[in-house]
């Protein structure tokens, strides 16, 4: 029960929880107290002195933003004294303000403008010389104009308290205080745009939209960001069909108004000049412009011919998980009904499917049993294989909030060293950090489980309920020696014991599983092992506890739930679940195709061997994602029909017989399902570019031409069908209600389910080396995701390219010294597969022996990689290789 206090504000009586600030209480009764420095996300600083109010029994005026409400308090916000105070504070703030509103981008939505219209006389008594700061170049994306600054320090506090980046600081004293960054070169930070959003005046503005608009000209559309699985709500602001800027209102969506660089500055992809605007058909070896009618008729004709000649299983379908649920749903329905094959896969195959499989196996759910709110209120957080700040920045903010504001214990297992850098490093906040090599996640997790078992921290109820399971797991970990674990992880047994102790004594624990685990061999097994950890500590099934695999692409989760995978039907239900098949057949009024279906890698193999004749690829680029050693190019080239629905002419689209222009998220309606399973509406912000069409519309048209019409009026109709078939797609509420673990599945897992693959899961085993991989090179190259890009999609966003336009080879300085390399050196990186030339970047956070390269610019780096496929889940792994590095001539 929350303690409450009663107080009176301007005659309104209100009861608020104890500790509520007067300004917040006032807002609740509809009284607006003017303020600059107060922000609900930040700790009160009370520096602008704008929110002075009269409180009975207090001699002086008090700042409403820093005074907590007390029992019986009587607050007055509109007395003569208070108004005089507001007026005088504004007079001070305006004294040195340049009043260049006509050329200021904030003009029209500026707090200072609004308040001065409300409180001050139009002429100031200030007749002295105004203070001026010389203009300094700040950064390519963020512009500062310090003369306009009111020194509320919101940007500085946001950068520190929320983002944990600390890129900005006030410098100078008194009137000469200005907000600066620390270094002599231009601003180098996470570019989350938080300072731009939070600035109450025009002191910090975005250069991307500078002078392009006035606030009243903008049309707004609330939609969902398309970059990572966090599913942040963004408001795209447009002017005359031009994308002007992106913002996210305080309290909006799952991100609560916080964004990352990708969300805030990466919006120009949709209007990139390279966007495909017309269908293209290959004629005499060249892709030439065609009309929609010609293109679709040709596709339908060829497809029908091939289907008659080779049967439906000569077809394959691949869809990108950046598409909406409607596109994904219709695509799998198209493949299953119109074409009649189970050869369906999506980019969720690269990793998300691992997580879903493990969750389904152990607890019978296909999504998280926790939400972002549970992360924030968790007492212990374990992050495995995820540099969460760079892959899922907003989930990262939730972790930061839990650790910084609520003192949660953070445990991290990551191929990352705790070191201060220009980008915040989640390992810096960790109470217990295990820095491992990319193949060391499993030993580290096993180390934790061993500590649980050996320190007798196994939950008693579990030991009574499932003695066999506990026995089996205990024996499995006891067989592992601490020496072996220490050798594999580089951390002492004591550190595992300490970490486990602080993890087990908490009531709410969440484990976040990242791409380091999910996109690696046996990712599904390790995720199941993490669920074992939660089961053993007794957290599993408790409210606010769970294992949460992080989705990399924005609709990875949706792709699985829509059944865009060979092993899942919409739901997701297993493809050979007879009840689900019958239910679906009834809804679709058609029998579902039988047969196992082919996964991504199998389809490519099939294309190479000639068993696959045709492929429909929607928004996915296997030729550009998989390394050349996988032979994707050759395989796709040998197809009789390759249809691509794409925004740009990608590597794959260049091989296609027909390229159909699809439209981006900014132009279509639909829904995305984020990593926590929250279904959110996507709304179009601009009109369709050129002749592009939403993917579902193209598929629908094709289905008509192919003689099996799947006709829908709009995306809503498809969603209606989805809603009738798939649980969790009912009401689109403000927050998701996570599913509870299915007790029947958990019990069956504890009884017998655990045993399959147990021995394999509980061995330290060397990482499965790709066939022929040689270990005699000096460094392990790991292709990773960085904060400023998401896949290859964002490499066409002009804003993000200004921050990061090319890949660099990041090394630990110690390795740099060992190899005689300095920052900025050109190096030749090679192994038996190929070589590349790139630039060296020395970073303390990269562990010794490892070299990171961003996957977004891996056109060259891909040549060094080999693909190995997980036999169980068919997940391809191609992220690391051992390489030799030498200085380029």
């Amino acid at each position, binding site marked *: 029960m929350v303690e409450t206090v009663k107080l009176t504000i301007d005659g309104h009586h209100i009861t608020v929880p104890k500790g509520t600030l007067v300004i917040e209480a006032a807002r609740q009764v509809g009284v607006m107290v003017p303020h600059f420095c107060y922000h609900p996300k930040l700790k*009160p*600083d*009370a*520096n*602008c*002195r*704008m929110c*002075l109010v009269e409180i009975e029994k207090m001699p*002086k*005026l008090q*700042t409403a933003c*820093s005074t907590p409400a007390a029992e019986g308090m009587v607050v007055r916000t509109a007395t003569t004294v208070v108004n005089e*105070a507001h007026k*005088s*504070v504004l*007079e*001070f*703030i305006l*004294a*040195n303000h*340049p*009043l260049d509103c006509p050329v200021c981008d904030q003009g029209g939505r500026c707090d200072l403008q609004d308040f001065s219209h409300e409180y001050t006389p139009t002429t*100031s*008594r*200030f*007749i*002295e*010389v*105004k*203070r001026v700061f010389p203009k300094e170049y700040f950064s390519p994306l963020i512009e500062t104009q310090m003369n306009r600054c*009111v*020194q509320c320090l919101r940007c500085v506090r946001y950068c520190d308290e929320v983002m944990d980046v600390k890129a900005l*600081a*006030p410098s*100078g*004293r*008194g*009137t*000469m*205080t200005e907000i600066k960054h620390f270094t002599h070169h231009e601003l180098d930070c996470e570019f989350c745009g938080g300072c731009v959003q939070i600035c109450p005046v025009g002191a910090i503005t975005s250069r991307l939209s500078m002078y392009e608009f006035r606030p009243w000209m903008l049309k707004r559309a609330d939609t969902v960001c398309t970059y990572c699985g966090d599913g942040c709500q963004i408001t795209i602001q447009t002017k005359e069909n031009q994308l002007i800027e992106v913002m996210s209102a305080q309290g909006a969506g799952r991100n609560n108004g916080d964004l990352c660089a990708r969300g805030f500055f990466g919006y120009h992809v949709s209007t990139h000049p390279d966007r495909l605007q017309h269908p293209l058909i290959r004629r005499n070896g060249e892709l030439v412009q065609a009309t929609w009618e010609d293109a679709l008729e040709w596709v339908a004709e060829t497809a029908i011919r091939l289907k008659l000649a080779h049967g439906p299983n000569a077809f394959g379908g691949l869809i990108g998980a950046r598409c909406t649920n409607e596109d994904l749903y219709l695509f799998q329905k198209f493949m299953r009904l119109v074409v009649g094959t189970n050869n369906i896969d999506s980019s969720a195959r690269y990793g998300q499917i691992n997580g879903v499989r493990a969750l389904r196996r152990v607890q019978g759910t296909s999504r998280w049993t926790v939400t972002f709110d549970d992360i924030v209120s968790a007492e212990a957080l374990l992050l495995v294989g995820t540099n969460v700040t760079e892959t899922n920045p907003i989930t990262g903010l939730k972790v930061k909030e839990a650790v910084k504001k609520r003192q949660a214990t953070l445990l991290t297992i990551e191929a990352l060293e705790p070191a201060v850098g220009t980008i915040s490093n989640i390992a810096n906040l960790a109470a217990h950090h295990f820095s491992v090599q990319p193949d060391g996640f499993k030993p580290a997790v096993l180390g934790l489980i061993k500590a649980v078992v050996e320190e007798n921290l196994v939950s008693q109820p579990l030991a009574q309920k499932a003695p066999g399971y506990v026995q089996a797991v205990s024996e499995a970990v006891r067989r592992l020696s601490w020496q072996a674990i220490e050798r594999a992880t580089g951390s002492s047994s004591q550190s595992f014991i300490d970490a486990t102790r602080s993890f087990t004594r908490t009531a709410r624990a969440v484990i976040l599983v990242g791409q380091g685990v999910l996109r690696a061999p046996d990712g599904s097994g390790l995720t199941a092992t993490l669920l074992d950890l939660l089961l053993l500590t007794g957290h599993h099934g408790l409210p606010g506890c769970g294992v949460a695999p992080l989705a990399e692409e924005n609709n990875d989760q949706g792709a699985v739930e829509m059944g865009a995978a060979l092993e899942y039907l919409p739901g997701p239900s297993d493809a050979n679940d007879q009840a689900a098949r019958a239910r679906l057949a009834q809804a679709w009024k058609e029998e579902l195709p039988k047969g196992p279906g082919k996964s991504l890698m199998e389809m490519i193999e099939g294309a190479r061997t000639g068993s696959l004749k045709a492929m429909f690829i929607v928004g996915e680029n296997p030729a550009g994602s998989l390394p050349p050693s996988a032979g994707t190019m050759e395989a796709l080239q040998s197809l009789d029909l390759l249809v691509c629905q794409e925004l740009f002419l990608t590597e794959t689209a260049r091989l296609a017989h027909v390229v159909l222009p699809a439209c981006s998220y900014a132009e279509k309606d639909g829904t995305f399902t984020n990593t926590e399973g929250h279904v959110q509406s996507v709304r179009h912000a601009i009109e369709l570019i050129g002749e592009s069409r939403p993917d579902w519309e193209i598929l629908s048209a094709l289905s008509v031409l192919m003689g099996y019409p799947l006709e829908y009026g709009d995306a809503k109709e498809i969603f209606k069908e989805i809603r009738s078939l798939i649980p969790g797609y009912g009401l689109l509420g403000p927050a998701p209600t996570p599913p509870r673990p299915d007790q029947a599945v958990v019990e069956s897992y504890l009884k017998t389910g655990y045993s399959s693959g147990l021995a394999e899961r509980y061995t330290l085993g060397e990482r499965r080396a790709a066939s022929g991989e040689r270990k005699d090179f000096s460094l392990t190259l790991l292709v990773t995701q960085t904060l400023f890009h998401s896949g290859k999609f964002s490499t066409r966003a002009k804003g993000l390219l200004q921050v990061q336009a090319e890949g660099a080879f990041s090394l630990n300085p110690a390795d740099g010294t060992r190899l005689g390399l300095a920052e900025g050196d050109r190096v030749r990186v090679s192994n038996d597969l190929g070589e590349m030339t790139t630039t060296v970047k020395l970073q303390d956070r990269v562990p010794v022996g490892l070299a990171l390269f961003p996957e977004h610019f891996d056109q060259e780096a891909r040549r060094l990689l080999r693909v190995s496929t997980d036999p169980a889940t068919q997940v391809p792994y191609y992220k690391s290789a051992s390489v030799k590095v030498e200085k380029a001539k």
Partner: protein
Amino acid sequence: MTMAKPKYELILLKNMLQPGYTGSLADYERAGGYQALRKILGKVAPAEVTAMVTKSGLRGRGGAGFPAGIKWGFLPKDYQGPKYLCCNADESEPGTFKDRQLMERDPHQVLEGIAIACYAIGAETAYIYIRGEFVLGAKILEKAIAEARAAGYLGKNVLGAGVTIDVWVHRGAGAYICGEETALLESLEGKRGLPRVKPPFPATAGLYGKPTVINNVETLANLPHIITRGPEWFASIGSPPKSTGMRIFCVSGHVKRPGNYEVPMGITCRDLIFEHAGGMRSDKPLKAIIPGGASASFFTPEHLDVKLDFESVAQAGSMLGSGGVTVMEEGTSMVWAALRLMEFFHHESCGKCSPCREGSSWLVQTLRRIVNKRGRMQDLETLTDLCQNIAGRTVCAFGDAEVAPILSTLKYWRHEYEELIRTAEANGSSELLMPAAARH
């Protein structure tokens, strides 16, 4: 430093005035030093020490004059965990130079006071936040701490009583605002020295968020004497019951013998200036007195008989503050004096709160214009208005301090302002000379 022959029994300055006294540990011990610490350590309960200090009526010598014992009593009673004592040696108030002498000439007296305070509040760590410019003082203190630690007066297991008292010297970086206790804590934590929003007060969440007591050097230096000679003795000195003990006044300005004078609380300004400091420098009559450092309001000759204790000075419309008495003779331009002080405050305004940040530059520019004979009559009203708008609307007391000189000079010497402005008007130079682009 010129010292007059002591008229009263000196307490704080007694040792250092002995011929040949070097301030070393040996000298201090010979003069009866560290006896107070021996007397209480492990023998008297910390709460009793606090009670003794409360009983003595010792009030803070830094400026605000808050009773020391009561301040200690604000610490949470059942708190388990580190507590801190901070010795505020950031003596930056213009016209104040007592702490410097105490630290440089008799450092062990301060250290013993710190040790006693640490024991009383249960702090194991004390920080001396010394003003950055006091290089010599910092060196002397470092040396004294080393001596005391070697002799077992500081460090682990002090005097075998199982008490840990570690003292560290931290040099500031030269900001006046760091004398404000919360800004001092911020600076000590390695952050930008900006005052914190109160509440929470340092007593509950101070240094690193832990309960912290901040005392002035002079306050702490008084402690050994209170312990040795008893609170009743201390309470009988000065003008009991509210202002007890001796007080060091730093007399500066147009007097014959500027310097530090330790006198009982409650002597009159006249006594201090004319008897102790030797009267006015030249034969010109006295025009103005600042009774308690730059942030106190001016006094006129009418106030010569005001008793120098906390209550009387406050009643007369000023404050005793840090005890820096600045004397000005007839012929001093009070507008110029106000400008001079205002320039100091403008330079030292930390920039946190809008009224103080913008107001100080505004006030300085306006005053400068008046002094340069370019003022206008309306300016006086603007000045008063601005001062009233700054005072009481800032996070710390700096806002109130910076307007005191202007408000008091405007109150007592308004005619001087008017005279300057009339000259300006006569010359026609009250027209604005600013570039018009600056006038919005």
